[in-house]
């Protein structure tokens, strides 16, 4: 049960007024923009366990058939996608205007991007014989979309961390592709998930610093 804040029409003393502003700003930011730290941490762990399962199955440090590992990888990513949609939907609900327009278009860009990726993957399945090259190509298309949308997401929502993450994912993608299908998973497992985990840490520190500055 939540307790309603007592209503007050009385003028405040100066220090109380400052505390009211700071507390209302913190609550509004939390309720309107969500928590990027948690999202990055969740995705970092999803990639770590997802790519880790694939890596373990391929290089034999997990007693798993690669098909089963692919199923686990897909399920982990699907759960992460659903949680992301639920969380971002929750924060944008009840808002109208410019933000809801750009949010809607940005969401559509993700959905359409992955629809195209799914179609391309179907073609790759039919024309590329090598199993590992197929996997590498499909994953690198997905990461190309992720990288580009993170860069544009950062510029759209004025979030430097997000744009830097997009650049990082594209650089890691290129490095992983150049390392060849034998090492693609290793590079991605370490530096892809690592990128999300470092971003979660950076975002947590940035938020703490922002709170300290606005309370100073």
């Amino acid at each position, binding site marked *: 049960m939540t307790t309603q*804040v007592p209503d007050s029409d009385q003028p405040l003393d100066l220090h109380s007024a*400052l505390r009211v502003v700071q*507390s209302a700003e913190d609550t509004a930011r939390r309720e309107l923009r969500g928590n990027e730290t948690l999202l990055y941490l969740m995705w970092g762990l999803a990639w770590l366990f997802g790519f880790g399962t694939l890596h373990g199955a391929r290089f034999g440090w997990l007693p798993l058939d690669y098909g089963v590992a692919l199923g686990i990888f897909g399920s982990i990513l699907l759960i992460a996608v659903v949680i992301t949609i639920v969380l971002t939907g929750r924060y944008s609900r009840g808002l109208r*205007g*410019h933000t809801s327009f750009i949010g809607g278009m940005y969401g559509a860009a993700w959905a359409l991007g992955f629809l195209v990726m799914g179609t391309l993957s179907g073609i790759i399945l039919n024309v590329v014989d090598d199993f590992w090259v197929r996997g590498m190509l499909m994953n690198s298309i997905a990461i190309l979309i992720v990288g580009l949308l993170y860069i544009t997401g950062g510029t759209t929502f004025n979030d430097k961390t997000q744009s830097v993450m997009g650049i990082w994912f594209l650089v890691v993608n290129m490095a992983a592709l150049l390392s060849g299908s034998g090492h693609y998973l290793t590079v991605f497992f370490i530096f892809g998930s690592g990128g999300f985990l470092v971003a979660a840490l950076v975002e947590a520190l940035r938020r703490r610093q922002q709170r300290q500055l606005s309370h100073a």
Partner: protein
Amino acid sequence: MPDLDPIIHAESRLRAITTLNEVGERDRIAFTKLRKILNMTAGNLSTHLRKLEDAGYVEVTKTIEGRTPATYVAITIKGKAAFADYRKALRELLAGLS
């Protein structure tokens, strides 16, 4: 010494305009969502929004969503400027105390 705007300088209205300032002047927030964030009763929030609206600091729009009436609230440019002035005056007054 600067004066604090009496329309803003009351706890409930200060919390409301701070939240609306975070939403920004290009967006509108549903009354129900605003009420939930502020943890206020509908009656109290309406009363305080009316005072802010009378001062030209917020704009209240009524609309129909599906078959349900919905109310949206947005800070105006005048409201954003008044809130910025309020914060500046508050900072100066607090600096004068220390």
